């Protein structure tokens, strides 16, 4: 079990399942928005694109039929496992 694996470590093209989210690490409004978009425990996602320039920020995450852009900081709060 790689418990420390977080979404920001997932390479473009790879899939992951969100196992836990550290909501306290995020601003309340942002946590609400991420939840409303479905980026929550149990969500199966794929990383589609990483941003340009340094830090590969932001990230485009595919969830079902939507693509959602988030910052690396958000992805870092999401623990994932390989599906």
């Amino acid at each position, binding site marked *: 079990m790689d418990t420390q694996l977080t979404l920001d470590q997932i390479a473009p093209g790879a899939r992951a399942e969100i196992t836990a989210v550290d909501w306290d690490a995020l601003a309340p409004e942002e946590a609400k928005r991420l939840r409303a978009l479905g980026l929550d425990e149990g969500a199966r996602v794929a990383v589609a694109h990483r941003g340009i320039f340094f830090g590969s920020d932001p990230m485009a995450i595919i969830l079902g039929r939507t693509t*959602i852009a988030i910052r690396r900081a958000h992805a870092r709060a999401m623990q994932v496992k390989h599906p």
Partner: protein
Amino acid sequence: MSRVPVIALVGNPNAGKSALFNALTGARQKIANYPGVTVERKAGRAALPSGQPIELVDLPGSYSLDAASPDEEVTSQVVMGRFRGEAMPEVLVVVVDAANLEQHLVFAQELIALGRPVVVALNMVDLAERDGLVLDPAALSTALGVPVVPTVAVRKRGLDALLAEIEKAPQQDSSLRHEVAELSLPERRLNAHNMAAGAILSETVAYRWHSRLDKVLLNPWAGPVILLALLFVMFQAVFAWADPFIGLIEGMIETMIGFVEATVPAGILQDFLTQGVLSGVGSVIVFLPQIIILFAFILAMEQSGYMARAAFLMDRLMAYVGLSGRSFIPLLSSFACAIPGIMATRAISDPKDRLTTILIAPLMTCSARLPVYAVIIGAFIPARSVGPGIGLQGLVLFGLYLFGIVGAMLVALVLRRTVTKGAASGFIMEMPRYQVPPLRDLLIGLWQRAFIFLRRAGTIIFMATVILWVLLSFPKADPGESQVEASIAGHIADGLNVVMEPIGFNHEISLALIPAMAAREVAVSALATTYAIDGDEDEQAAGLTERLAANWSLPTALAFLAWFVFAPQCLSTIAVARRETNGWKWPVVMLAYLFGLAYVFAGITYWGAVALGL
């Protein structure tokens, strides 16, 4: 007589709500603000099959009734009938994207649970089909317990059926609905998943061209190059494509001047009509083609879904100055006009982020500056080619835009470390699927923008031009004396000139800056008016650009351009900033720093150019 029932369109962002609204109401729309907040209220009339007129309201896109931004707050308050001064909607039309049911049915369930009459518009079924989805609206209707009507807003498909269901909705049997009031978000999401699965008859993995498009447009190397190229083409087009139309409008104005000169007896009235009204307002109307081209590009980028990709590409860059990709859209809109740009900042949830974006929005080169730039560039920059398809004039224009952008970024950096200091903001944004911009929505958007511009030309600009003409024409100069110098405006400009002369501005510029406070583009009509009155007949016959080229030195012209990159010469922008920030503090900060920068940079430009011997 009973009042017209209000029907609200409500749904997730990117559900195609606005396209449906446009299809139902046509161009008969009223755009205003909700009282007390700065969220846009879009309303329009439509008629039910029985002939009963209804008022359709397009509510801001939301993910949940538990609001995470000011727009979502409005949606939530209105649908629950708690918004003061806003009638509770008789029927809620819940718009869902047929290709994204899993996501959109979550909010739909929340809305249905309110117990109000509801009709679900299963929108964009054509795009779902394109993606290989075949849906069963009847199954979805049974699962939700409310009528479901498949629609394709762009092709006006399903609109009659939708209106018929709206008519029947107040008599709905709510016992068909399942008790969904007390569900948690994960439970709703599970329900949405199951309902979506139940409504999908077949799903073939169709050619996912939008993900292929993303691979190119969001590519770390190709993406930014394409974005930059697109912006460059946009600015070249503004100059090149507009030319024939500008010539057409100029011809029309000249014909009208000729007509007035032939019919109205020579004297004060003829002068007023030809020199005041026609050449003044005419010199602004002439820029309508350029403004329409600029807006066409921005609207097409928005409606095609590319704008969100641009925001994604720009996010990291914006993060360097303490902003996010979300600020990119308001800032790009500000290239058309800072007013919709500043209003679009309400989509930014972080207050510090939003304030910073409002403060720098006027630095984006708005379309009102375009007339000023166009005249000066036309007069002083030779129209020669510096490469295949690249004109020097277009290049200078591009440079001015770039100058504004770089200035804005530096100001943002300073602001984020001083007055708007705070935690770094985030960037969370749903990327809509690509689609060909529907021509009808594009045209409605363009018409609304053109109308706003013409209304400004007909009101503020007309008034400013007329007042300026009066100030310039009286008192009459003695023989041998210059009319401009002798006039009231001449005396006001004398005072202003003391301050402006050190940065290379001449008397006419000082004069033009006064009415240009109303709106930037008035500077052009003000200059046209001053030179039309002061010149002899030969000069009057020549165009304004030729007159400027003859009267101004190059350093003065460049300083004038530098001034307009920064100067907050627009009362409407200041008024909007006051409304959006709820007070005078920030508009005053904005005025002070922008005038300060304008003065300093115009000075640097003038003396730099003089030192270079230009």
